[in-house]
């Protein structure tokens, strides 16, 4: 006799959903709620006194001004470069598109602080490039990148791929008929671009700009390497200096600072929403994506320009980084005779903290990747196939910790875990666990997005067929859904691993002796003047990152389009 919805089915479904929601609440909502509480209820370590002190300090407003200036500047550079490149790659018939996209997106996947060091090496007094050109500076001369302009330039290069990716995704969905109708009406290619393509691409462009602005605002590695030496502080580096100098006693002050930076980020996101809500950009046709315009005699010059750009902003700085890692000591000229691998030996085997950091970063990145995917697969099941209003909110809750600058989450985590946990009495503060906690909350969305994309590609009837065959939810997940979603989940896991592996913003505030990450060790080498060790460590992370990115191309054919940002 058939029973109506047995308790077991209901328990399975609701139990799983509420369990997942609890995980999301702890990872995403709890820290930010704790930070907000600090703002509205000044009974904890915060008082109106601290707010007044921070807001009346000139350092606060100087750093805010610097943050706005570099973030806006970096966004403008990224918009110009990423926008033009996306249009050229999507709408013209350039060759070797895949190779170019890989190289163009690569800087985004490499740690910002490593990119910054590579640029420092390129323009530094020992620069092989500048020496070859005969314009190398004398030792002790000021590196031109230690300036706001340097920060803006490197931020722009690092985040141009963000604009590129959002615009490229938009252009993929632009039906070719939209362009062809313009051509048939007598408009030339440039007129079509100006009057049809760009207006229709406003949503991805605005979204890309907002994303880039928030990313520039929250970036720590680049202003840390390029700004701190010249005492040009932005909000994240100001927070870092306060925490590094005073420890938890500065917590009241940095909470206010991190809320300030959070407010700026939220204003940026809200401006985006406001701009997009005013007009109708919906494209309601079904024809295929745009066909490329033929460049004809301009093709070769355009291709040369693209690869020249790639050489300038990727190959040359990375080459300078590698060369810098082969020098026995800072200042020693590099020659076949002096080149050495001793720096690599030292950072891999000779330095305790570096060895620990290698282990910590590897294991935390891997743990975060696996744990997030394990949560994301069933969570996405509910988000995609059983949409409820509650889940819309969950989607939002997951986006926020990633959208807000990393320092905000780090400070929130410190507030949450400074005191030992209630009941169990264990303290996570000053352990690797607080860093891992932040990784889980911050990168959850990186795993969820590809998995959601994967679900949209699966025909729901596959699951329904197994339901008809009598399989309950748990069994369906394991036997039907997991095998189908595995490629997308793997891609998400890799994305998380790479991001966590190259991360510095969060761990710079949360690390402690024994709980170092690669980013932290890299940064401390660089701060301590051991840039050869930093260069060796940076080169290692670049090799691991690029190698993993390349290895994903092997399974690229089985992935939903757009899951791997570096694959076109």
């Amino acid at each position: 006799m058939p029973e109506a919805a047995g308790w077991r089915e209901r328990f399975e479904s609701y139990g799983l959903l509420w369990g997942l929601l609890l995980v999301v609440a702890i990872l995403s909502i709890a820290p930010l709620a704790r930070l907000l509480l600090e703002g509205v209820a000044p009974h904890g370590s915060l008082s109106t006194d601290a707010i007044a002190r921070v807001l009346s300090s000139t350092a606060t407003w100087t750093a805010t001004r610097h943050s706005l200036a570099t973030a806006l500047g970096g966004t403008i550079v990224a918009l110009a470069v990423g926008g033009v490149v996306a249009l050229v790659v999507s709408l013209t018939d350039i060759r070797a598109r895949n190779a170019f996209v890989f190289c163009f997106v690569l800087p985004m996947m490499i740690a910002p602080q490593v990119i910054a060091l590579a640029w420092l090496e390129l323009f530094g007094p020992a620069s092989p490039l500048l020496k070859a050109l005969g314009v190398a500076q004398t030792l002790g001369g000021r590196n031109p990148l230690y300036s706001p302009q340097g920060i803006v330039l490197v931020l722009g290069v690092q985040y141009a791929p963000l604009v590129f990716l959002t615009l490229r995704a938009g252009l993929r969905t632009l039906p070719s008929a939209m362009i062809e109708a313009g051509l048939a009406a007598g408009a030339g290619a440039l007129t079509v671009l100006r009057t049809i393509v760009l207006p229709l691409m406003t949503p991805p462009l605005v979204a890309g700009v907002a994303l880039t602005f928030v990313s520039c605002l929250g970036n720590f590695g680049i202003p840390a390497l390029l700004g701190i030496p010249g005492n040009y502080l932005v909000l994240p580096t100001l927070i870092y200096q306060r925490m590094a100098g005073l420890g938890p006693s500065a917590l009241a002050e940095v909470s206010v600072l991190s809320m300030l930076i959070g407010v700026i980020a939220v204003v940026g996101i809200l401006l985006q929403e406001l701009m997009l809500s005013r007009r109708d950009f919906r494209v309601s046709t079904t024809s295929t994506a745009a066909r490329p315009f033929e460049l004809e005699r301009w093709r070769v010059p355009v291709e040369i320009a693209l690869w020249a750009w790639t050489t300038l902003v990727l190959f040359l700085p990375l080459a300078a980084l590698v060369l810098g890692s082969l020098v026995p000591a800072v200042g020693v000229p590099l020659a076949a005779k002096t080149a050495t691998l001793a720096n690599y030996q030292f950072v891999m085997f000779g330095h305790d903290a570096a060895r620990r950091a290698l282990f910590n970063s590897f294991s935390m990145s891997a743990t975060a990747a696996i744990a997030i995917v394990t949560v994301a697969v069933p969570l996405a099941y509910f988000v995609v196939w059983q949409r409820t209003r509650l889940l819309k909110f969950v989607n939002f809750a997951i986006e926020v910790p990633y959208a807000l600058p990393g320092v905000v989450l780090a400070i929130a985590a410190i507030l949450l875990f400074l005191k030992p946990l209630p009941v169990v009495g264990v303290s996570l503060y000053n352990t690797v666990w607080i860093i891992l906690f932040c990784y889980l909350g911050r990168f959850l969305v990186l795993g969820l997005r590809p998995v959601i994309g994967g679900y949209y590609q699966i025909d729901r009837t596959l699951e329904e067929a197994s339901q008809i065959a009598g399989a309950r939810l748990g069994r369906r997940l394991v036997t039907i859904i997991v095998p189908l979603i595995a490629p997308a989940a793997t891609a998400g896991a890799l994305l998380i691993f790479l991001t966590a592996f190259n991360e510095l913003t969060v761990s710079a505030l949360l690390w402690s002796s024994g709980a170092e990450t690669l980013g932290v060790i890299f940064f401390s080498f660089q701060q301590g003047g051991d840039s050869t060790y930093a260069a060796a460590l940076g080169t290692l992370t670049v090799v691991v990152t690029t190698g993993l990115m390349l290895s994903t191309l092997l399974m690229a054919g089985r992935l939903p389009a757009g899951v791997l940002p570096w694959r076109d």
Partner: protein
Amino acid sequence: MARLTIDRVTKSFGAFRALDDVSLEVADGEFMAILGASGCGKTTLLRQIAGFDKLDAGRILIGDSVVSALGRHVPPERRRIGIVFQSYALWPHMCVAENVAYGLTVAGVKDPERAQRVEAALALVELAGFADRRPAMLSGGQRQRVALARCLVAEPSLVLLDEPLANLDVNLRASMEDEFARFHARTGTTMIYVTHDQAEAMALADRIAVMDHGMLRQVATPSQLYREPADDVVAAFIGEGMVLPVDVRSVDGDGTCDVDLFGHTVKMRCSSQQRPGARMRACVRARDLTIVAASSPGVDARIDHAIYQGGHFRLEAHPVAAPDLHLHLTVPEPSALRPGAEIRLDVADGWIIPRT
């Protein structure tokens, strides 16, 4: 307005021949339908005429000027054509009037002339009050008419229509068909209408070009296409013709002939060049088949299926003499005929497919 000449055009995508030596003449003011199943190359041909793709061999002329040939390619924006896409391709960021005015704006036409022409074009498609609407606020049929107005406002020499009714529901289709026909009568524009729907093509076109596997099979008036298909493919495709083996015994001077169909003598139509001969093929229509008494002369067949279609049955059968062939005919309700029953068929008419 202008005539269109397609002269031995060939286009390949990799190893796939999308267009194979296609030649077609469209007269000034003619309504020409290009008919074929999906993948037959009809849209590829349309894109060649519009200039969105380059051809591999052959020439395309609009009026007297060559617009496509090897080494010469006039870009689409300079061909003075109008096109209505299957998806309509209305720009969502512009209102109806802006969509329609686009071609004029690009050509540098200023107000008040531009506004007048836009108004006239919208009046022509009976959308006078809709100038300020957004495309998203229009129904399917209204969008269709905006697309038509947009393509006509610049008075193109040639209008291309790419399955313009495919996205509309059945009721709307019929009324839009009328609209196209009236529209063509009023403006006298040369129109090329791509479709996979033969009823649509027959209802609208002066002539129909049937395409299959990248090749042009036949270009003829709708009636000629139905009555006198040029080859087996057209015979089977248009009106579900049955292609049957016949021996032509004798040809009369008046375009008819006596043929032997499964040992039964029938009078059929044929071309004036037709010669007597064995192993020819004839196209027979369902309406030419009637069931007669077993004592009358006729072709014996056995029923495979009897499908009720509302008011009548569609009988599917095979000739007893050739079990591999298929016959079909309709009989009115009520009917006691069931699968397995044997029937005798009188064949009233047929067309001898010219050997090519």
